[in-house]
């Protein structure tokens, strides 16, 4: 089953968990993010542990004008891709709600950047009539909450984009999977109050790779988040707007 998987935003804990799960089943990897020093370390580690080939290079989601050249570079290195994982994202802070400059950065990374690179990937996979695109969004995109609605809006937009892309690529046999992680034990959540049933990034990574052998299109991880979000989405707005969330 060995293929070549491109992981974008490869230095986050969830991305590393996912890369590990792909490497463990024998896939070669191409890792990309803004942090070359970290990529080098993660690539060496996966190579040593699993004996797979791991290439890496710089990728900045917000620098959309570099995406075409970046993707050509990836293909030059691996010849053929079997799938792509979009794992990058920027949580930003609470301040983003009040400063447009920060909000713009969040949108540029989580939404605009994702649309830019995935347009290129979709155009690559469509004529091949195979491949997969996994987009990691967030449960925060299911309903706007005062604590992180800029991030939520960007992720929500990304979820919608993936939905449309899935519809378009269905005819070509290209899988598009939307992953919505709940609380995962990462640098993003470390020390945050009010977390419960936090999943490890390794577990989430394994589950992400497992979705490829299932039929699901939109996957909450861990699975019980589907029900938590079902409840949250159905709270009537007149009540929801009064909640401190």
């Amino acid at each position, binding site marked *: 089953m060995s293929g070549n998987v491109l992981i974008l935003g490869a230095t986050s*804990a969830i991305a590393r968990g996912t890369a590990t799960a792909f490497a463990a089943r024998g896939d070669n990897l191409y890792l990309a993010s803004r942090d070359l020093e970290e990529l080098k370390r993660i690539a060496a580690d996966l190579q040593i542990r699993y004996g797979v080939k791991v290439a890496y290079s710089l990728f900045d989601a917000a620098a959309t004008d570099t995406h075409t050249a970046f993707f050509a570079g990836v293909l030059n290195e691996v010849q053929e891709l079997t799938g792509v994982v979009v794992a990058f994202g920027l949580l930003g802070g609470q301040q983003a709600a009040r400063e447009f400059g920060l909000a713009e950065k969040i949108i540029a990374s989580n939404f605009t950047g994702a649309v830019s690179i995935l347009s290129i990937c979709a155009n690559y996979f469509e004529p091949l009539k195979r491949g997969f695109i996994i987009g990691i969004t967030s449960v925060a995109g299911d309903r706007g909450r005062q604590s992180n609605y800029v991030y939520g809006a960007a992720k929500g937009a990304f979820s919608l984009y993936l939905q449309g892309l899935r519809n378009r690529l269905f005819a070509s046999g290209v899988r598009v999977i939307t992953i919505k992680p709940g609380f995962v034990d990462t640098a993003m959540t470390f020390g945050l109050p009010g977390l419960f049933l936090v999943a490890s990034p390794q577990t989430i990574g394994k589950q992400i790779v497992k979705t490829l052998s299932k039929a699901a299109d939109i996957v909450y991880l861990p699975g019980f988040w589907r029900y938590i979000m079902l409840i949250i989405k159905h709270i009537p707005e007149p009540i929801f707007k009064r909640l401190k969330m």
Partner: protein
Amino acid sequence: MPTLTKPISGWGRYPVETCTLERPERYADLKPASDSLIARGQGRSYGDASLNENGGVILTERLDRMLALDVKQGILHAEAGVTLAEILPVIVKQGWFLPVTPGTKFVSLGGCIASDVHGKNHHHVGGFGDHVLSIELIMADGSQKKCSASENAELFWATVGGMGLTGIIGEVTLKLIPIQTAQMMVRNQTAKNLGHLFELLQDPAQDDRYSVAWIDCLATGDELGRGVAMFAHHAASAEYTAADPLQSKPKRSRVLPFDFPAWVLNSFSIGLFNNLYYKKESSKKAPFLCDYDSYFYPLDTIGHWNRMYGKRGFVQYQCVIPEGTALAGITALLNELSASRRPSFLAVLKRFGAEGKGLLSFPQPGFTLALDLPIRDKGLFSLLDKLDHIVLQHRGRVYLAKDARLSAESFKTMYPRYSTWQKIKQSIDPANRFSSSLARRLNIEGAK
């Protein structure tokens, strides 16, 4: 960097102290951010070595990448947060093994160096630090310094066994040892009492690459110190002729899901276990093959085995008594223990070789005894003070990685090289930025 303030403890679950945790995920973020901090790998030291009450604790568990493995020379370069459990499957299949391993594989490389851990082969190869080719130490000012036995050697030997107090160990280069198979060839010898056990462990005709003895702590009188000596070496390919001799199956592990009530471990249940164990092990007359996991890490297959000792936790008391006075000293310790009617579930005796260069390293030539003692009441601590007294009388020392209650005075007598260590510490970290609850309790850094 986000922080999390919460009560934590070491493996013995005593003491429990509130610390402010940070957990960097990028190597560049592994640097001292607060005024008082200690690095913590897997938190497998037993007492307060990885605690820093009301101060910072920097978790290295996410900085666990292996950076290079030279399969020809047997050299591993990795971040210090990686555990032996993660390293082993990678190196064993290439025909390499750890030069020294403690009794659990769930420890980080950094922890192995900071405690200068020893294995069942100390009498032949020394401690863990003796096999470290170099480390990258992150200093109090945030700079990185490469240290080895030839480069910044003073700092290197202050860090080997230095309980994390010289800086954060970021990267490690380790020399591995070659193996032909993933199996161990083990031979058991029963000993009717402590004197007999000592003879077995000292007899060159019996000796093997690894040796260790289990003691039945409940045996008294003529049988005091009865036990089983276990000798082993990595099986050669002639001894284990499997198609793929380096293959090892992962062990199924079980987890103790809850704290045992305090009454579960008592003289009766421990006595029963000891009798069964003694009979079982002494029934193995002929040498037998055993996979490396079962040989080196028998307790690792039970996750959270520390819960066996109940909520109040336990103390592991490990000391070493020099060769000349070892038999007398360990006899006195076992007598004191049996008079106290506090049975130890686990009692392990090992032989140590030459003292290493680590200024605060534990091993010295002689015999080391390790005891697991549940904390039922404060009376345990006065027993342990009595044990300290016996150890001091016999010119021995207590292992800091397992300690939770030694006094500063005893520490100074037991570790005479501490003053040299303090001079180095003061020159590289005069503000004691790297500190821990253990360091303050024992006044390792020297009072200001």
